[in-house]
């Protein structure tokens, strides 16, 4: 049977078999060369193993792989994240009986089926590119992880099965069975993520191999230093990213809505998506600390490359992005208060919150060494500004990001209680306790930040841990108090869903684009710190692309990738919105 016959047969059926066929081709492509290498036990002439690299025209091999890998990761992040919160929303709807939640969860999953196809297609293209352009590296990776490829392929089939039965089975099964499918989808998705993370973290912090590169232990290679930190970091970041894309979809539908009912629904969808994104975003720096700690534990050199070498300026770009994210998220909450009756009383606090965000952003974005002209440097007495360089060190930056997180959390608290009055007898005491916790934590975080200037580096590094933990603990304690205090709260006004100005929806798009760009940038640094190594310290990159490019070049590649991604996302949104349209009917002659 020829390939075209197989394709013809497949296309005559439904979408699922087509997808499975694509996956099968991709998996076969992945497994074939590995199989060859394993079976032969040596580099067979003409198998591709004697060719180390091939060049891709115009942009070069590295850039094309970079762009496809990032696009694949962005879609994969979305496809893995949406089922996580769709299932939770479905469960909330099941428990409280509110059909709106069920409808919202269903709407979120509408985005999945098209996105899953994009993910698989981009993954296939990436696999082909890697095999063709980097045969020596792929042979080596195959010799280490060959045994994980088949389970990975099977997991992909399981993912497809669960995903399509979860989406097409909406309302067709009992809620428990349907949620069981959702749970299966999520479990398989998480395992897929963990398997793929093993490959990429091995490249960064290899373990389980001899110094000469031969495999000693597959489990050792999988459970390398950064595997679990990356798993957790990605899981959380995926939810933040997926939530923001879902919010952007809500914004897109809101802007095009024709009725108040539609506007109200999509306003709510945008709000929930953004809530998910920001809630997941807040603990992300903590997961980042863990990842950084493990990188240093693996190799001081690798850690120094990340934080003190060529990439140290990348974190200034990151500071700008995170500052913009916080600003956008707070702006959306503040504008959102306009649709809540009774929120006026909290508006006076916004200027203080804005001031706090602005100050923190400025501190975070202040570099340690200034880019200055000769005259300016002469006046400053060096490359470090006499006053501002104080803000450029980690003590100041850790303090700023923790206060930023606290400020955003306060914005959310004000939003949450806009139309509510607590009725419990201890409400006043409860509010004073909450206020005291905020004041104490803020002073504690600032105290530790200042203390950092007067202690040795060894002690200073450790101060970030109590800073982070105090903020985390504050959010947990205040949330628990708030839930208890507002349990039987008096509702002082309604939330007028849909009564939102268009600028709030553009803020959601802005947040989504910023998330995508941030993801691209951090993906670059994670991969880039290996510098001239395919597998750090084990397999050297001897291609013409072995040098580490400038941050400007990397920024341009990230920008182009983000624009391509959103072009694809526009297609996903459009296709997803087709399901709500009326069927086409031939015009009847009058």
């Amino acid at each position: 049977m020829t390939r075209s016959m197989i394709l013809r047969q497949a296309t005559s059926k439904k979408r699922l078999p087509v997808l499975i066929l694509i996956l099968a081709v991709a998996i076969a492509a992945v497994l074939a060369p590995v199989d060859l290498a394993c079976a032969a036990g040596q580099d067979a002439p003409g198998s591709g193993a004697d060719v180390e690299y091939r060049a891709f025209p115009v942009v070069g091999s590295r850039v094309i792989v970079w762009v496809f890998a990032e696009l694949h990761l962005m879609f994969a992040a979305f496809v893995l994240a949406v089922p996580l919160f769709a299932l939770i929303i479905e469960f909330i709807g099941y428990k409280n009986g509110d059909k709106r939640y069920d409808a919202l969860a269903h709407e979120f999953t509408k985005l999945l089926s098209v996105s899953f196809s994009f993910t698989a297609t981009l993954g296939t293209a990436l696999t082909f590119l890697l095999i063709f352009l980097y045969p020596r590296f792929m042979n080596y990776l195959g010799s280490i992880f060959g045994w994980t490829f088949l389970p990975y392929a099977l997991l992909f089939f399981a993912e497809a099965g669960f995903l399509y039965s979860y989406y097409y089975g909406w309302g067709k099964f009992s809620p428990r069975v349907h949620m069981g499918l959702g749970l299966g989808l999520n479990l398989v998705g998480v395992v897929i993520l963990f398997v793929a993370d093993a490959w990429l973290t091995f490249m960064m912090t290899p373990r389980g191999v001899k110094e000469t590169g031969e495999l000693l232990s597959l489990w050792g290679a999988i459970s390398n230093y950064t595997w679990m930190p990356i798993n957790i970091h990605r899981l959380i970041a995926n939810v933040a990213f997926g939530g923001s894309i879902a919010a952007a979809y809500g914004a897109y539908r809101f802007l095009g809505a024709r009725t108040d009912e539609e506007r109200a629904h999509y306003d709510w969808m945008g709000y929930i998506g953004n809530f998910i994104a920001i809630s997941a975003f807040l603990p992300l720096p903590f997961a980042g600390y863990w990842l950084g700690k493990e990188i240093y534990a693996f190799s001081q050199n690798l850690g120094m490359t990340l934080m003190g070498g060529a990439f140290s300026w990348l974190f200034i770009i990151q500071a700008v992005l995170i500052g913009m994210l916080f600003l956008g998220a707070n702006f959306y909450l503040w504008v959102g208060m306009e649709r809540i009756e009774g929120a006026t009383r909290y508006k006076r606090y916004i200027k203080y919150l804005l001031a706090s965000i602005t100050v923190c952003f400025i501190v975070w974005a202040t570099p340690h060494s200034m880019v200055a002209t000769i005259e300016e440097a002469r006046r400053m007495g060096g490359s470090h500004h006499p006053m501002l360089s104080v803000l450029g060190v980690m003590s100041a930056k850790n303090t700023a990001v923790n206060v930023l997180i606290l400020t955003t959390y306060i914005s959310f608290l004000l939003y949450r209680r806009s139309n509510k009055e607590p009725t419990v007898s201890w409400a006043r005491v409860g509010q004073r306790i909450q206020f005291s916790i905020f004041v104490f934590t803020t002073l504690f975080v600032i105290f530790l930040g200042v203390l950092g200037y007067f202690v040795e580096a060894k002690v200073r590094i450790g101060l970030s841990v109590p800073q982070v933990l105090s903020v985390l603990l504050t959010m947990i304690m205040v949330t628990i108090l708030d839930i208890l205090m507002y349990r039987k709260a008096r509702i002082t006004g309604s939330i007028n869903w849909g009564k939102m100005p268009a600028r709030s929806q553009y803020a959601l798009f802005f947040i989504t684009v910023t998330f995508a760009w941030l993801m691209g940038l951090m993906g670059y640094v994670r991969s880039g710190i290996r510098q001239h190594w395919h597998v750090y310290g084990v397999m050297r990159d001897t291609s013409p692309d072995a040098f580490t490019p400038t941050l400007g070049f990397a920024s341009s590649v990230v920008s182009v990738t983000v624009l391509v991604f959103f072009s694809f996302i526009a297609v996903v949104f459009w296709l997803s919105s087709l399901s709500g349209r009326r069927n086409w009917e031939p015009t009847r002659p009058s």
Partner: protein
Amino acid sequence: MNNALKVAVLTVLTTAFYAYVGHMVPQKITYPPESAELESDMTTEQMVKVGGEIVATKGTCLACHTIGSDKPGRFPDLGGIGARAGTRKSGMDDVGYLAESLYEPNAFIVDGFNPGMIAPSKPPVSLTDSEILTVIAYLQSLGGTPTVTMQTKLKYAGQSPGPAAPGPRPTSLAGSPGAALDGAQLMQNYACVTCHKVDTPEKLIGPSLYDVGSRMSTAKLYESIMDPDASVAEGFPPGVMIATLRATQFYDKVTASELKTIVTYLAARKGKG
């Protein structure tokens, strides 16, 4: 304006803004380190010189160590190590101690510092046994007298991966821009001569370099280019040179081989013509 168009414009402007920020920070290309080719009949003086270069470049030692600073970095200051090395561990001479520090750095931890140094003999640094001998000679020269030769047999010899390792392979930087230029031409091209005289003792914006080879070791020359504020010549303000080099994008443009050529050229300026 149509909503979709507005969203598209917003997306393009946002990404363009972030790309702009990315282009505004200092730009630097980092090239893979170059392998030093060592001859077995090198004199001790030559070994010290090569060792100093390796410490400042391929060895990446100065990422964590300082030389003659009161504020040590992540790991101990190396100033005067040549005098101290023989007294660190009882029953171990300076060559033995320095060799152990390079092959098994966590076997002995100096008080007040944490373990964590990776062995330069292993990847990712991968210094060869010969390169390590030159590094030991250089370290001995810091406050002591080099005694090691290229024929010295260390008990660790043979542990470094060498060319047989399937993973790491030597990288050729041949053909990199400027490789064919000599030191004087590079000094001219990078406009160093705008601030420094190289053929007379006359001071310009910076000190004259006509006798710099007799005043500074090779490692010090590397440091004075890569981190000019680490020690500033008396009577000259700090910060000026680094700001100039950044403004002219010297650090973005210069390659490892060009830097080596410049340092070799400067090391030869002994003040005689």
